[in-house]
């Protein structure tokens, strides 16, 4: 078998190794990037990439592609699937359907077509994580991982209530290992607790969450300490309180400030889909953009990163573990609503939504996402996402890239926006345009680094996984700010996508598929402490759960390609 590939003369963008558009050759052997001297050019398959852009495979760190709520979304939206059939081609691809809630197969193919090779599902309740892994196992091509919802977990809350951070850390470490999760996800901290009683909409950072004697602020701080204690690869992944409520930007800033004293040099909080959390004003009618305040704070500190949560005009399916917000959203759409509650762990809601250009609120939302990304100076603090499928499907990333790289592209959309909204936003006056290097940062290197996977993902240095995307773009000839259509076209269909040393996409068409790895974290905890905590957990488990403790744990053999990442801990 010929497993050597040589990519010649491409313009390489590899921010982790500080390579900015240099003409270079990239050598691949046995699924890894290797120094050029190690391969035999006569045996290797040579790809001539002269006049093309070579980047590491894309890393999407926040995309709802698997799990129980995505599946509920699929069930709820048959109309999303009728006319989007991907037909079976024997030996090349399986069939599938869906636009905003695609089948597992379609997820893999569409990401690969755009040159993305790693995708992380950001929210899964621990009890249902077996299902999430089944779906991730069925998702072709991509490497994946899943973040675990912990903010409303009764055990976590009990330990944090007592201030017992060490025991909480041991529990979190066990939970991550037992459910094969990757990081701590916090969604509207504590919201599932009041939601059991039908309350919780607009829960503030300092509101009590009865029956627990604790506030969301304490949950965020507690889990942040746990995260640090366990030395987890990814900082806490926070969806802030009061998401989607006008005037919530203060809560967002407060949340970031709440953990500012816990950081030393490192990033200790990731604010996700920040667009939904940067609203000013007191009601929908006078919604304001507060992207500037958010960006100002983030520019002034080093402990925060964010992802955009950019909205795309058109159909979306909002799905989040912030159940009361979804219920409120349902009353604005009056179409469909799906809700779910997971015993002692989390809740979720699903509402289909359509973003409209002429709608004042939607127009402002569109501007906020881009404003935040453009106003934050350091691209390493920004990650490109649409919070698929909340803001729009991930297949719109090429469009977002074009908006970021070209003011002209933004102006073209701004022309058609709601006129009243335009008076309220700063976007038309922002001149910044991202360079291709910065795009490589926010779509590849940045997220890989944030995930702690920067030794194997998001770069093209020797030792990295051979995940490479080659785009038909010539940075020497094309002026991107003028020709934004070229960017959009190039990123929406990669010339080559190489995953793990195999060519999976050629000229924008899938040629082959395989299955990637699933990463999970194993944090080391002292045996004595772990035994003590597990003893306590087992005792309560029978009382709180409908399944037995022994059936809760997901074992390695249940996953297709499990890949533990061992970290130091308590």
């Amino acid at each position, binding site marked *: 078998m010929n497993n050597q590939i040589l990519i010649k003369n491409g313009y390489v963008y590899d921010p982790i190794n500080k390579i900015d558009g240099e003409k270079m050759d990239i050598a691949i052997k046995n699924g890894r990037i290797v120094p050029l001297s190690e391969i035999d050019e006569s045996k290797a398959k040579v790809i001539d990439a002269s006049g093309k852009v070579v980047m590491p495979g894309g890393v999407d760190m926040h995309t709802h592609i698997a799990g129980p709520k995505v599946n509920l979304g699929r069930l*709820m*939206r*048959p*109309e*999303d699937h*009728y006319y989007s059939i991907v037909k*079976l081609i024997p030996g090349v691809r399986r069939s599938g359907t869906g636009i905003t809630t695609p089948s597992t197969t379609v997820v893999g193919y569409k990401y690969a077509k755009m040159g993305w090779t790693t995708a992380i599902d950001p929210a899964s309740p621990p009890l249902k994580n077996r299902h999430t892994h089944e779906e991730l196992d069925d998702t072709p091509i991509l490497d994946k991982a899943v973040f675990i919802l912990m903010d409303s977990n009764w055990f976590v809350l009990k330990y944090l209530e007592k201030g017992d951070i060490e025991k909480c850390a041991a529990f979190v470490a066990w939970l991550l290992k037992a459910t094969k999760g990757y990081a701590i996800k916090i969604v509207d901290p504590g919201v599932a607790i009041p939601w059991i009683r039908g309350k919780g909409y607009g829960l503030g950072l300092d509101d009590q969450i009865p029956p627990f004697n604790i506030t969301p602020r304490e949950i965020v701080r507690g889990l942040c300490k746990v995260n640090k204690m366990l030395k987890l690869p990814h900082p806490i992944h926070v969806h802030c309180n009061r998401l989607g409520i006008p005037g919530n930007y203060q809560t967002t800033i407060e949340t970031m400030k709440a953990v500012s004293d816990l950081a030393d040099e490192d990033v200790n909080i990731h604010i996700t889909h920040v667009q939904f959390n940067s609203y000013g004003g007191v009601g929908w009618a006078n919604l304001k953009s507060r992207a500037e305040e958010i960006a100002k704070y983030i520019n002034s500190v080093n402990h925060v990163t964010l992802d955009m949560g950019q909205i795309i005009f058109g159909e979306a399916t909002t799905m989040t573990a912030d159940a009361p917000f979804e219920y409120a959203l349902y009353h604005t759409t009056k*179409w*469909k609503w799906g809700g779910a509650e997971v015993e002692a762990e989390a809740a979720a809601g699903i509402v289909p939504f359509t973003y409209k250009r002429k709608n004042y609120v939607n127009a402002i939302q569109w501007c906020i996402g881009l404003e935040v990304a453009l106003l934050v100076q350091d691209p390493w603090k920004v990650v490109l996402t649409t919070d698929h499928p909340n803001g729009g499907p991930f297949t719109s990333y090429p469009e977002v890239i074009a908006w970021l790289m070209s003011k002209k592209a933004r102006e073209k959309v701004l022309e058609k926006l709601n006129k009243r909204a335009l008076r309220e936003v700063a976007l038309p006056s922002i001149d910044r345009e991202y360079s291709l290097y910065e795009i490589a940062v926010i779509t590849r290197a940045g997220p890989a680094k944030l995930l702690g996977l920067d030794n194997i993902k998001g770069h093209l240095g020797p030792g990295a996984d051979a995940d490479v995307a080659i785009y038909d773009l010539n940075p020497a000839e094309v002026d991107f700010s003028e020709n934004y259509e070229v960017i959009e076209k190039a990123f929406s269909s990669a010339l080559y996508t190489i995953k793990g040393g195999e060519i999976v996409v050629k000229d924008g068409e899938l040629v082959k598929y395989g299955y990637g790895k699933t990463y999970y974290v194993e944090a080391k905890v002292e045996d004595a402490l772990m035994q003590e905590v597990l003893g306590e957990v087992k005792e309560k488990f029978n009382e709180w759960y409908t399944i037995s403790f022994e059936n809760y744990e997901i074992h390695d053999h249940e996953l297709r390609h499990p890949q533990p990442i061992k970290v130091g801990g308590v």
Partner: protein
Amino acid sequence: MEKIYEVILKPKREFRVPVELEVVTPNNFAGKSINEIISQVIYEGNRERKLGELFEVKGEVGESPDNIRIIIENSCNKLWRIGEGMSAGEIIVKGDVGHYLGKHMAGGKITVHGNAGSWVGAEMVDGLIEIHGNAGNHVGARFRGEPQGMGMKGGKIVIHGNAGVQVGLGMIKGAIIIDGDCLEFPGMKMRGGSILIRGNCPGRAGADMTGGKIVICGRVDSILPSFYIESIEKATKVKGEKIEGPFYMFLGDYLASRRAYGRLFVSIPNNPHLKNYAKLLEEGGE
């Protein structure tokens, strides 16, 4: 009168799995030669085929879809999606047809001399479908999961036999006429248009309707409790055709909306068990 070009399709063999014939429309055939038509790709189950592999195609094809008549002979209920999205011309089917006949149809005429499957004229916009046999479920319905406002928007469906459940689900405009009986839930979630059922209906007519008109000339087992008796009418009209009564007229469905104005006409002579409603009217309401 302009010349009508006839194209005749005849199956070459018996089909055991569904054959999807969305390409068989006057719009698609217009301006193509017979050779081009027989090389069109269709699916038999999950296998890709050429139209010519499964059908014998004869006749002439015109430039404009308006004067094309497609005749399908020896048709069977495995032929799906005939006339999908057609906007002009005519299709005549001699035999049965499968599901999705005239789905999203926007004009023209389809005649079936046999029975039809489910989803006849689903989400159609305009045109005429006439079926001389029975039809399946969801005649003129909107598809599952679609938002309000996606139902049948116009045109006319005439079924000379019986129909299944949920006739005219989510209908907005147009007319459905059923000469025989129908099953439960005719006019469910209906917002406009009219449905005429000359035969019987087991009940639950007009569930969740907020507009439009349902006329049932036969027996109805029961009226939903969310409908209120409004008056007794001697006769009513459906698409200009006078239907002799007398009828009880109900308004509803008040569970769907507090300002519902859906009208349900139910024959008085064929429904002696509903005579309590007449008493309610005499007493001047509740």
